[in-house]
């Protein structure tokens, strides 16, 4: 483990009708990190590394933990609409963004509504479209540890696997998983983790530089969904990492960081 000693701050900002919990760290140009649906509490290396080059903003989505739930948000499109209001109030302007899994779907929905919200967009194994081959892993029929394990091509060979999937989760971690699952379930129960209209709407991203990153062995959201994203977003890049599952940022941190740094440079 490297010790990069980034000073992270936690703050609560009252925006768009909710007390938004915001984690912030690093220095440089702002980078918005839209998190996945799992509710990890561990501090991971890719975040520390990104904070060397960027001021990283990690909001807790409403309903996913410290940020309270908003009753009217019933799907990812609602959440995307809320984010546009929240980002305007936060005053970040047009910002570089990375979206992971459900956070990638969210970022894509935001961009279809207002492509100018982002300068550049990196989508990492985003949910949100129906894979033409295979299915999105049913996270509600497995306990969190099994879901997270399914996100790795080689769990035991991944340095940080046990950081986010401890053999015995602490009560705090177990609860954070449950809370995130519950809200993910509200947003994505059916159709399961996709919005049928999204591939058609993605054409709006034609002027937004978009990079799609996928693990070739992703068994959580199959690579065929990545092809749909790639084909639907004119001018997009699809980067496929070998021997890698659904979490390239954790399983192939170096390659992931290389791609992201080069893309945002």
């Amino acid at each position: 483990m490297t010790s990069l000693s980034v000073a992270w701050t936690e703050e609560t900002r009252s925006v768009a009708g909710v007390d938004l919990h915001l984690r912030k760290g690093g220095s440089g140009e702002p980078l918005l990190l839209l998190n996945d649906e799992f509710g990890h509490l561990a501090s991971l290396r890719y975040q520390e590394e990104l904070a060397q080059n960027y001021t990283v903003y990690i909001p807790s989505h409403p309903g996913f933990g410290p940020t309270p739930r908003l009753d009217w948000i019933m799907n990812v499109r609602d959440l995307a609409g809320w984010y546009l209001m929240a980002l305007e109030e936060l005053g970040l302007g047009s910002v570089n963004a990375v979206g992971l899994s459900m956070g990638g779907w969210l970022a894509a929905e935001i961009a279809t509504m207002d492509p100018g919200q982002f300068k550049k967009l990196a989508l990492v194994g985003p949910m949100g479209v129906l894979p033409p081959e295979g299915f999105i892993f049913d996270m509600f029929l497995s306990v969190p540890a099994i879901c997270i394990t399914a996100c790795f091509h080689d769990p035991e060979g991944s340095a940080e696997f046990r950081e986010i999937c401890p053999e015995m989760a602490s009560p705090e971690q177990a609860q954070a998983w449950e809370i995130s699952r519950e809200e993910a379930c509200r947003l994505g129960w059916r159709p399961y983790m996709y919005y049928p209209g999204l591939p058609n709407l993605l054409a709006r991203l034609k002027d937004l530089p978009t990079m799609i990153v996928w693990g070739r062995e992703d068994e959580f959201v199959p690579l065929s969904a990545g092809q749909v994203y790639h084909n639907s977003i004119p001018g997009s890049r699809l980067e496929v990492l070998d021997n890698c599952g659904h979490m390239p940022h954790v399983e192939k941190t170096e390659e992931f960081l290389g791609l992201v740094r080069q893309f945002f440079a």
Partner: protein
Amino acid sequence: MFIGYFTERPYQDQRSGYFGATGKPIMDLTVSNEIYDAKLGAELYNRYLDEKMYAEEMGFDGLMLNEHHGTPFCMGGAMNVEASILARMTNRAKIVLLGNILPIWDDPLWLVEQLSMIDMISRGRLVSGWVRGTGRESVAHNSPPPYNWERFQEAHEFVVKAWTTPGPFRWEGKHFQYRHVNPWVRPYQEPHPPIWLPGVVSRDSLMWAAEKRIPYIMLATEMEPTKRAFQLYHDTAAEHGYESGPQNIGYLWKVHVDETEELAEATARKYVQGPSNPFLAGNEGTVNPALVNLPGLTSRTRVLPTQAVATAARGGTGGVAGVLGRPYEQQIEDYTIITGTPDTVIKRIRHVLEYIRPGSIFFWDGDGAMTHDDAMRSLRLMGQEVIPAVKEIAKELELPGPFEVDPATGKDLTREEAAAPTADD
């Protein structure tokens, strides 16, 4: 005292490999229906209907049905179909549905129509219970678990309104929307069929029932936590300004009567020898912990004493030893299975009635690996000896059922009926 008869209607296939105590345990939603034998299915559906009709003949007050989806332990995937048949084929007993799984209905107006038709055809014998359903029901019909409780409450309000308010009217709810509600069938009973709530799990549901003056039925739970849960009902009732009593609470448990003690024991052991059933202690099968704990299905913290118990045994997070996972012998000891000759059974039922003081009881029989003959012997002896004796005990213990004392008002319904012709009160 109201006495009902219940069986889960298992799909009993000796050749299936998972049948019997030594067979493969069933993990929920993992058994493919490719093994389904149509001839056997037809036999079993007709057998269970015949047994229900015989139960009426033998003096049961209620014929209880339930519903589960995608599982061999309960063939009642569309319970209202069975209820419809009983509506026409029987003529005295109440048809007690415990219950329709409200949150999984995307179109509750259709439920309004089906139940009204059952009430019509049976000339007012429907008791319409609601349940929230377990994880398997939410998954099988793809209903969002975190909205289970909201959908339950909204569907209940909608059904009651559709039963009681002349149409057409509009309904613009959070989960259900209609622009034209005007079903061309209304319930036979005024103002609508009684609504009961069975359960084991949720404190929210039990308190909701108490608040709405809806009778609550505990399903195959251990006696001590059951008593505690009912106390919570009675306390909640008091907080809402009325006095609840036996008429507000019911208890279902396993009772099998037979001709000799030996035959009774051999047959009652079959409770744990059929296809495994998560509700049949001793033969629960293998449990998928994610499925019994779907996100938001029940509140993470607001569970009943009975469920703190059950969760542990189902691989949940609790630490208490369980309602489930108990061997046959222990269930005999703690009265959750009662079996024997009529004399033996009557004595033990008395103990349960004294301890829990319910106004409704349901004998869960003919389940597991029990055959039609097993079920019919028990039904006959219940009719000849057990039901009359239990009715006497209930009178002595002052345990009125919900058709003797109104659960909502405490009014004596039998006196009123009797008094009406002479008008001397």
